[in-house]
């Protein structure tokens, strides 16, 4: 009856030692009691509570989907039109640019501030502390407006010797345009938060690591860049990505400078055509897409820095998918699992074969 033959050695491997059989439910000692364990039918556990909860959530989901489809006020056709509208794409690109540059500025400066805070010089420590205090305290919106009005305080900027002659002159208004005012606002306040994140990461690395590096005579800068920071990254990355995502959405605040990022662009469009909700949906979809991209990048960056912290790296989603397909293929075809599949996955296929054989055998008996 069974088309799948279970190899003898495998069945011995999987079955518990025979000799002790569960008591017969009907109190009839005899034929069933003598059956070997591996021929018994396996009844999976039932979960009525889980089924009920699943049904409730399924109904709720159906309601949401149906309202999304049937409520015409969502105006999905308008959403579809504006999703790839050239000026919306430009706005999305501006948002990406702002996020990238502000992240780089924020984390570069934040790392410097963290190292200053951990240095042995009291002046460097207190400057770093004060910076963090000021930039975490003043609202971002206010900072943006202040930077944009820098020309009022300093009409001209110049490079030169401190307290000495000036060598190069700039007109503040020509240097600090909307983009750079936004970068200054976003980046400098981001630095204050990043500094604390990087500092926490550095503190999380075992003191022995720095000692070992020092005992080997490794230069100070190399100790930080090669030994301490790579290990700190493991605890820095999750929080840092949180910050980058916060920054991505935070760029929408730059609309106060009338800079053409995503949110400013859609607000201009709905100001003109009055389709407020569909255009807000357009912006939401774009923020969702960009956040998803960041999350995917985070996964792989975290995996990179997990080297050495775990014995075996967790599989990527692609690997998982491939192995699952191979395991199912072998369960259905009865052929052995290819050796490229790790044992933990391959075992699932064997368990499947066992229960199937057991059921058919039990049914026959």
């Amino acid at each position, binding site marked *: 009856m069974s088309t799948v033959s279970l190899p003898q050695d495998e069945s011995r491997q999987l079955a518990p030692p025979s000799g002790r059989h569960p008591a017969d439910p009907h109190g009839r000692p005899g034929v069933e009691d003598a059956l070997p364990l591996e021929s018994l039918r396996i009844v999976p556990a039932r979960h009525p509570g889980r089924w009920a909860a699943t049904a409730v959530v399924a109904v709720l989901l159906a309601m949401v989907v149906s309202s999304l489809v049937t409520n015409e006020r969502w105006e999905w056709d308008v959403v579809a039109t504006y999703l790839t509208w050239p000026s919306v794409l430009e706005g999305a690109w501006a948002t990406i640019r702002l996020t990238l540059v502000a992240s780089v500025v924020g984390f570069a400066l934040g790392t410097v501030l963290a190292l200053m805070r951990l240095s042995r010089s009291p002046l460097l420590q207190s400057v770093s502390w004060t910076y963090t205090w000021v930039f975490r305290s003043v609202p971002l919106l206010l900072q943006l407006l202040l930077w944009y009005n820098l020309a009022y305080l300093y009409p001209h900027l110049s490079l030169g010797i401190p307290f000495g002659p000036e060598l190069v002159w700039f007109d503040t208004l020509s240097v600090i345009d909307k983009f750079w005012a936004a970068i200054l606002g976003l980046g400098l306040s981001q630095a204050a938060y990043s500094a604390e994140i990087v500092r926490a990461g550095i503190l999380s690395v075992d003191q022995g690591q720095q000692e070992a590096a020092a*005992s080997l005579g490794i230069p100070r800068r190399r100790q930080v860049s090669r030994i301490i920071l790579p290990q700190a990254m493991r605890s820095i990355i999750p929080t840092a990505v949180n910050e980058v995502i916060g920054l991505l959405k935070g760029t929408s605040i730059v609309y106060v400078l009338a800079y053409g990022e995503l949110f400013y662009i859609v607000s201009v469009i709905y100001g003109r055509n009055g389709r407020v909700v569909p255009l807000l949906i357009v912006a939401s979809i774009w923020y969702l897409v960009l956040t998803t991209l960041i999350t995917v990048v985070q996964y792989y960056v975290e995996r990179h820095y997990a080297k050495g912290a775990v014995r075996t790296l967790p599989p990527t989603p692609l690997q998982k998918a491939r192995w699952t397909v191979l395991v199912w293929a072998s369960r259905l075809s009865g052929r052995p699992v290819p050796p490229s599949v790790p044992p933990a996955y391959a075992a699932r296929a064997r368990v499947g074969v066992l229960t199937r054989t057991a059921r058919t055998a039990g049914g026959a008996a």
Partner: protein
Amino acid sequence: MSAPVTDTTTPAAGAAGLVEIHGVHKSFGTLEVLRGVSLTVRPGSVTVVLGPSGSGKSTLLRAINHLEKVDQGFISIDGELVGYRRKGSTLRELKEREILGQRTQIGFVFQSFNLFPHLTALENVVEAPVSAQRRRREDVEPEARELLARVGLADKADARPRQLSGGQQQRVAIARALALRPKVLLFDEPTSALDPELVGEVLEVIKDVASTGTTLVVVTHEIGFAREVADTVVFMDEGVVVEQGTPAEVLDHPRHERTRAFLQKVL
């Protein structure tokens, strides 16, 4: 061990690794951990430091490597002061970079291994010769592989520390310290964090290093190792050297009551 391997780690003839410690004091807060320690370690000798925990053994070892700055007294390696430079009648404190330079002559093996977990065994060994001694990676790598082979881990070059047992990790740590070709090698309880069955493999490697003529100072509780390998056994208690001598003298015929009491407890 094979001849070419020995060449990479044996110090050049003449440069020997004489460690002199004069009246060293060290306090942590109000606790005085070292209270006037003087000790001379002969070049190429193996010195085992014994003593109850809190006796200052580890602090003394860390002071030799200037991981701890002493409050009073001096330590020198081959007549060169650790952490200072003599200029006429003044002693100038060395800058961090110069101290790091001095440390490349003194290897240190930690109780908790302190391997760099994100680097492979080979990268752990290669790192310091390249970044501290500015040697070329291509020259260092074959040497590093030989060192790993010497500690019995030729096949683990690409493994990361978490994939190795404690004994294997400590052997990599010894290879890492040897890669700098130090004159003096300091071991701070190298087997205390290991399962009993792994202690032997690490002690074998230390014995092998001892036979190459590098000066070794080993803080340990392994009395058997001291008896077999040490030229000198030093017993410390409460921040001072209580007595020192050959293993036979100190371990079998201790002159001080405190030494006797300690040995009775650990044997």
